[in-house]
């Protein structure tokens, strides 16, 4: 498999009044034309890992890495100007909650068209047409009508599809989806994942899916990176999740209640401080 993205020894450190906080420590992985999952609990550094790839780290944060290489380019050394050519056009990001990530005072269709025009210099008319096509691609029925709705007029599931349409329209090579479905109902969640699945299999994109849901990620992705306390605990083939070696991965799997067999007491995840030392 050809590698789209290589991340080596990535660390993200935030300077706070109480001293530096290491949100991500020494994380390495490769991404090909595949679905890669990054799983962890809150504070595990999974979102910061995703954001570091696009250099979208808050002002008090520092990104250090052996290398972040995308299509022969060194992202770490790229200027802000170079990054603007990469963000959206080559690598795009789907955020968690469409209610906070869409512009509330612009029609959703125009927001999608804007994404296209910024990256392609197309005319307004072409962009309009392309945006309508894109709405159709993300399986929105009645796309003419939806085009002229405002974000508060659409449901959560539809909002997330609109976000996906916006991210897909410049035809990026990599999509980073940060908890794209955790604000959605289960059935809608499945449909949105189905859409992302199509994008990877039909368009040959690379997808990084960031999530807290180990069961979901392992059934959707090809490979899973399990993170805890800013570190990678292990990297697994999703199909071989049940063969997980690390006690953290096992603990995470066991402590979720299962539909099929009822346990009287759920096993509690025992954290071992040695996981965070090398």
């Amino acid at each position, binding site marked *: 498999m050809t590698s789209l993205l290589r991340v080596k020894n990535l660390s993200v450190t935030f300077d706070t009044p109480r001293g530096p906080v290491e949100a991500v420590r020494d994380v390495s992985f490769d991404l090909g034309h595949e679905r890669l999952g990054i799983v962890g609990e809150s504070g595990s550094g999974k979102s910061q890992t995703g954001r570091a790839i696009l250099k979208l780290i808050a002002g008090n944060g520092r990104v250090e890495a052996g290398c972040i290489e995308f299509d022969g380019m060194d992202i770490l050394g790229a200027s802000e100007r170079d990054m603007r050519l990469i963000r959206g056009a080559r690598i795009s990001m789907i955020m968690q909650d469409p209610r906070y990530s869409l512009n509330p005072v612009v029609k959703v269709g125009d927001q999608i068209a804007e994404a296209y025009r910024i990256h392609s210099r197309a005319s307004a008319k072409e962009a309009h047409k392309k945006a309508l096509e894109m709405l159709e691609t993300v399986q929105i029925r009645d796309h003419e009508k939806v085009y002229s709705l405002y974000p508060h007029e659409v449901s*959560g599931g539809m909002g997330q599809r609109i976000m996906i349409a916006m991210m897909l329209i410049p035809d990026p090579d990599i999509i980073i989806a940060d908890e794209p479905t955790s604000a959605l*109902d289960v*059935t809608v969640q499945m449909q949105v994942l189905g859409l992302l699945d199509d994008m990877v299999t039909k368009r040959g994109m690379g997808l990084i899916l960031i999530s807290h849901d180990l069961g*979901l990620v392992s059934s959707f992705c090809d490979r899973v990176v399990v993170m805890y306390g800013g570190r990678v605990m292990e990297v697994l083939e999703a199909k071989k999740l049940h063969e997980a070696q690390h006690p953290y991965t096992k603990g*995470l799997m066991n402590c979720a*209640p299962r*539909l099929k067999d009822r346990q009287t*007491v759920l096993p*509690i*995840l025992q954290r071992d401080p040695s996981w965070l030392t090398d």
Partner: protein
Amino acid sequence: MIRVQDLRVTFGKGKNLFHAVQGVSFEIKAGEAYGLVGESGSGKSTILRAISRLTADWSGIIEIDSAPLSHRRDKSTARKMQMVFQDPYGSLHPRHTVNDILKEPLEIHGVNNRDSRILQALSDVGLSIDLRFRYPYQISGGQRQRVAVARALILEPEILLLDEPTSALDVSVQAEILNLLTALRRQHDLTYLMVSHDLAVVGHMCDRIAVMNRGKFVEEISAAQLRDAEPEDAYTRQLISASGKYDRETAKSFVSFD
């Protein structure tokens, strides 16, 4: 213990009248754990809000211990029935310490032995006494939800209304809170009415489960039926197949139940 008959809840008026709950009936026996599942907008939380009278526009009969409830909240039902909310970040007063939060219900109801009651409630939910004078922002999400449970239990109610008590928490913390709720039910002979969108959580906690869609009960099933995936209704089956695992073919086969 709880009997609800033909409960209807509406929001808005005139042209914008919305029927959030459309004629729902169920009974919960003393000591039972009853679950309501459904997707967002199905009316499951609205039922809890009507029972706790946080919503005024309801009609039908709600009986606690064979006594019908009025539309106004009163102190005596508050001692019988308490609610735990979804988001421990929003449901605890940010400027009150844990001690203030637990003391408030005792003051309202004029209960004595406040100190010993607060200490007992903290130990019941497995919180260290060191946290007694902390503010909510100084403790973790799981600890906050424990404080919310302690606040609900401090008046020694018989019924707990649980509105998605773990959906804002990580799975490992969720396991701790669910275990705590299971143990407390046994120790204090509590009756639970629990709302969740997560079938696995409801299946783990509850004896009987009502599946809701668009303000109505789709069906009522036992936890065993849910585990064996034997529901009668197509909507319930779709909900089960959407839970937990992604499958390409299943995702394509979904239909909408409007």
